[in-house]
């Protein structure tokens, strides 16, 4: 197998520092948003006792799901022995760590008592999916960290496959845990199904790869390094398969619910009468996040780098829409404590709950994305994560 040269990006140009500063600014906004929310309490957010998880959870869960998906390129390289993907692996690992960091920060900074994080690290209830996730997230950092080390340090290179396999299995369990945060909830009709775990895994494949492709293309375009079509074409086809699989799971989930009379009302809410949630579902999740990217990726448009990037961006937007519908839509629909009866109370029972995210929530969420990208931007400057060239000739040599 031909060897490949990894090189840090120089990162001294005004453009690099402009990007760094731009992302840093959003990290700062995120920090200020947290400070504001923490000082005043959740009263300054759009969240209330009806919509208890709001926009920060949408961003956090999206980032955590995307994080495990971003590791896929590395997994394909070392677990499934595809040499073509080997040069792509280090970026895949660092991006997954960075996205996980961003997601977790948003998650913990949205706690009612984010100052008590240490309590969450020292008091455990092993029947709680949240507790399991605390271990799954920590383990993810450790395993992917070790995996990255085996990629970067020649002296431990022989452990790369073992570390990669462990990280791959761990990430599957981790996303199972993320999906099960909702799957293990008995109260709400749109949750409480084991289907959410595999659905979240396949969503992670799609979201993670879409982000990976955008970061890869941006890194090579902005540093003037050659990135051949061979890599892009292979990955965009894989992305199309993932997006189609997401659509399949979504269809199965809703079709199953539609078969059961007791779920008709909540399905009618999401699919037909839910206002913003219905729009986000059909236009955001299905059309923008699914159908349009599929058309782009599977037709002649998919041969254009620009169109692939557009498809990736749409998948990310569709993913955020999906999280919004999954997390907030399910809470917006009132709990059905007395099936068949009309409920009314001072606590807004029986009514659809509205939600308008506040500025601090938006900036906290964007801060999570910004910190993930900032970490990645910094990491490729200080570590040898990116091959000097990924032109078609270099990549072709790897295959033999």
């Amino acid at each position: 197998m031909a060897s490949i040269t990894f090189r840090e990006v120089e990162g001294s140009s005004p453009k690099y520092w402009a990007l760094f500063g731009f992302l840093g600014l959003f990290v700062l906004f995120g920090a200020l948003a947290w400070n504001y929310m923490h000082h005043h309490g959740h009263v300054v957010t759009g969240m209330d006792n009806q919509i208890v998880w709001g926009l920060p959870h949408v961003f956090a869960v999206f980032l955590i799901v995307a994080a495990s998906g971003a590791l896929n390129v590395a997994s394909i390289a070392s677990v499934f022995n595809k040499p073509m993907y080997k040069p792509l692996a280090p970026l895949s690992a660092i991006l997954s760590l960075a996205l996980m960091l961003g997601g977790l920060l948003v998650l913990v900074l949205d706690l009612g008592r984010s100052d008590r994080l240490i309590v969450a690290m020292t008091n455990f209830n092993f029947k709680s999916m949240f507790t399991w996730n605390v271990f799954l997230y920590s383990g993810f950092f450790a395993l992917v960290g070790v995996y990255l080390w085996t990629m970067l340090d020649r002296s431990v290179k022989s452990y790369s496959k073992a570390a990669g396999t462990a990280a791959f299995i761990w990430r599957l369990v981790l996303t199972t845990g993320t999906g099960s945060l909702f799957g293990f909830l008995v109260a709400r009709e749109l949750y409480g199904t084991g289907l959410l775990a595999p659905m979240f895994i396949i969503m992670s494949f799609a979201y993670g790869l879409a982000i990976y492709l955008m970061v890869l293309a941006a890194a090579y375009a902005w540093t003037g390094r050659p990135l051949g079509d061979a890599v892009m074409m292979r990955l965009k086809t894989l992305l199309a398969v993932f997006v189609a699989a997401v659509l399949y799971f979504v269809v199965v989930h809703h079709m199953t619910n539609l078969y059961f009379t007791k779920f008709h009302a909540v399905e009618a809410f999401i699919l037909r009468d839910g206002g913003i949630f219905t729009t986000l579902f059909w236009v955001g999740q299905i059309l923008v996040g699914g159908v349009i990217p599929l058309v782009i990726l599977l037709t002649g448009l998919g041969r254009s780098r620009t169109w692939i990037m557009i498809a990736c961006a749409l998948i990310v937007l569709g993913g955020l829409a999906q999280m919004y519908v999954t997390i907030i839509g399910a809470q917006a629909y009132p709990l059905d404590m007395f099936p068949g009866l009309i409920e009314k109370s001072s606590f807004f029972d029986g009514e659809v709950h509205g939600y308008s995210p506040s500025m601090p929530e938006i900036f906290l969420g964007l801060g999570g994305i910004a910190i993930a990208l900032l970490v990645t931007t910094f990491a490729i400057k200080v570590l040898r994560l990116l091959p000097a060239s990924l032109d078609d000739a270099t990549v072709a040599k790897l295959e033999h």
Partner: protein
Amino acid sequence: MSDMKPMSDNTPSSPERRRFVGAATATAAGLAIAPGVMLIEVAHGRPEDQPASSAVRWGMLVDATKCATGCNDCVTACSTENGWTPVAESKHPKQAPQWIRKLELQDPLTQMETNLPMLCQHCAEPPCVDVCPTGASFKRADGIVLVNRHTCIGCRYCMMACPYKARSLVHESLNDTQKPDVPRGIGCVEACTFCVQKVDRGDGNTACAEACTAAGHNALLFGDMNDPESEISRRLRELPTKQVRADLNLNLGVRYHGI
């Protein structure tokens, strides 16, 4: 008499046997009296150094047929006892905690209307306790479901898990309506405690039930569901009652009649 003879012969010369009989009598008497003593202790409150006992299961019977339309006395009494601001006085009604609320139900077909208070159902298998990452949500031995104010991190997973929408997050700094024996705090989740401070004092009743009785409605009855002699156990034996979302099989501490 001849049967007794060896015994009478034996008895004076057998101090061991006498000790045994004495001890057995004392034990039997103790066993007979202990539950009574226990009950008196329950009725007189629980010393702070003793844990809550699983011999007791606190519960509530709600007779929806007696719950008056428009009456909000239970809610007011709860808010006064526990120091939470009534929703009508809150500047942020959607974010204001409500430990108990009046629910109006109507059957769209028959137009039949039902009134009832909705509060924490103090499940024997509480989903909120299952999902709580830190164990801050817990169930006491006597069946009361509580939140530990010191270990709640405000993740709100319990609010996602509760099928009764019984829990609230404290969204803003608390004013001076707080009560010394009802700890609350910004960023923490809270709910009905079955007036645990009153129970532990030995009042044997909750503020909402007291208010309902005082108003003459007698729709709320609080007591020990484990004690077959208690008023609540007696009424539960007589009245057909239901658990809300009985399909979840959570074994609720609050039972409703007339729904």
